């Protein structure tokens, strides 16, 4: 279980996170939804140690993660697929996947995982020698997810995986999220596509200007008037 308690982040004078708390139980899919600038990405980046948190706690199976190096956090099993995919455009698909397994040394298992990723995303296998920069947004997103899986994550966090993708890829990405979760990986998903995110999620948290305003099961939130008005463009 990943537990976040009273997490606060300041950027200069801006209070980006105002003491948020949320739980990501093992084996579940949890989603954070909210408008642009609500602090969703900041939450993920501070869990990874890319952004320094002012105060609060991020505990992972009872161990404090805050203040650790990003490398240690990844090694403990928490992995982020960052916003905008951030694949290495000048490196090939193979090299990107190898970097995903950078901290691992079990060669045979790494190769097995590479084959597993190729099975999930056959398109990556077809183009494994090509540079990632030549790929479409959807293909880069597949690579970013595949690269993250190469580190054998226990918790996979994804920041806006469907942003800017063609509808075909959006459906595919959410299918993959379900599949990865079914294989036992816990998922923390940040999305602007609230409908699709709440559809797959066990639990959802709604963020507004740096705080969590309310939460509930995915189903309940889909039916909630506030969510329908603000995020689903209904009512």
């Amino acid at each position, binding site marked *: 279980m990943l537990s976040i308690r009273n997490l606060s982040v300041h950027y200069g004078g801006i209070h980006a996170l105002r003491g948020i708390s949320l739980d990501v139980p093992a084996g579940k899919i949890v989603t954070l939804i909210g408008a642009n600038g609500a602090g969703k990405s900041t939450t993920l980046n501070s869990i*990874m140690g890319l952004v320094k948190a002012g105060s609060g706690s991020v505990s992972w199976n009872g161990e404090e993660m805050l203040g650790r190096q*990003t490398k240690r956090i*990844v090694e403990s099993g928490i*992995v982020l697929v*960052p916003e905008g995919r951030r*694949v*290495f455009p*000048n*490196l090939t698909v193979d090299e990107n996947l190898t970097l995903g397994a950078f*901290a691992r040394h079990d060669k045979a298992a790494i190769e097995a995982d590479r084959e597993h990723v190729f099975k999930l995303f056959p398109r990556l296998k077809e183009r494994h020698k090509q540079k990632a920069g030549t790929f479409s947004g959807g293909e880069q997103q597949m690579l970013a997810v595949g690269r993250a899986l190469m580190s054998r994550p226990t918790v996979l966090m994804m920041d806006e995986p469907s942003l800017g993708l063609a509808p075909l890829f959006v459906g595919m990405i959410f299918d993959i999220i379900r599949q990865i979760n079914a294989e036992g990986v816990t998922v923390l998903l940040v999305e602007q596509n609230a409908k699709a995110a709440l559809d797959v999620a066990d639990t959802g948290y709604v963020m507004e200007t740096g705080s969590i305003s309310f939460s509930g099961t995915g189903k309940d939130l889909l039916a909630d008037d506030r969510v329908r008005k603000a995020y689903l463009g209904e009512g």
Partner: protein
Amino acid sequence: MDLQTFLQQFVNALSLGSLYALIAIGYTMVYGILRLINFAHGDVFMIGGYLAFYGISTFVIPWWLAVALAIALTTLFGVGLERAAYRPLRDSPRISIMISAIGASFLIENLAIVLFDARPKAFPVSDFFAANYVFSGVYVAGISLIIPLVTIVLLAVLLWIVHRTKTGMAMRAVSTDIDAARLMAIDVDRIISITFAIGSALAAIGGIMWALKYPRLEPLMGIMPGLKCFIAAVVGGIGSIAGAVLGGLLLGFIELMTIAFLPELTGYKDAFAFVLLIVVLLVKPTGLLGKNQGEKV
């Protein structure tokens, strides 16, 4: 000018250009990873020459051991420089780290004046390097043949490291996207140290070969070659290793060929690099082999 003179100048230009290339690689690699112009790089080059001098002349150890020790110690020096002057400013604005680089350069130069003495020292050159070999009328000093060969070998090793090893892959990752590299569990500080180690080792080897070619050491000897090699790296396209090599060779050839064809310009030798820089920046601001990397956010 006859063919013989041309060949003579060609050999000289090739060895000078190779030296420029070796030093330019250090600038380009550090820039590629940190977007920092390591202004102290020329001084690291100077340290390499002096350490070899002390090994050979003062401690009278075998020259190969002195050279190996000088390279190793200069490498440590370069890594230490990054630790002391650049790492503490990792999250500061880029201008701060640049000012720190200029400060480090002045500090090293003035410390060298204090420690090594401002008076030039004669670098001991063994007969093997100093001997001239004659190939159909073209005189070639042993060192002028060795420099391009050493450069080619080092370049091959470097390209192998960057393109064929996991560490090299991590270096390329860090240079494209430092936060994404962190997310891959890459120890970014370690990769930066390795980059400085490689750049400083090449600068040390360049400094020692420079001293064998022009056997006169002085504390400020790194300034002009450092500046020229920085220009070579920019001309070739900063961030690109191939560009640094191309820029270095180009600069070596332009310098020596201009003097050969237009001897009356000899006094302006050191200005050619700057003319080349201005021309290239006007025509192709990213450098000959450079890509537009944009500002890092």
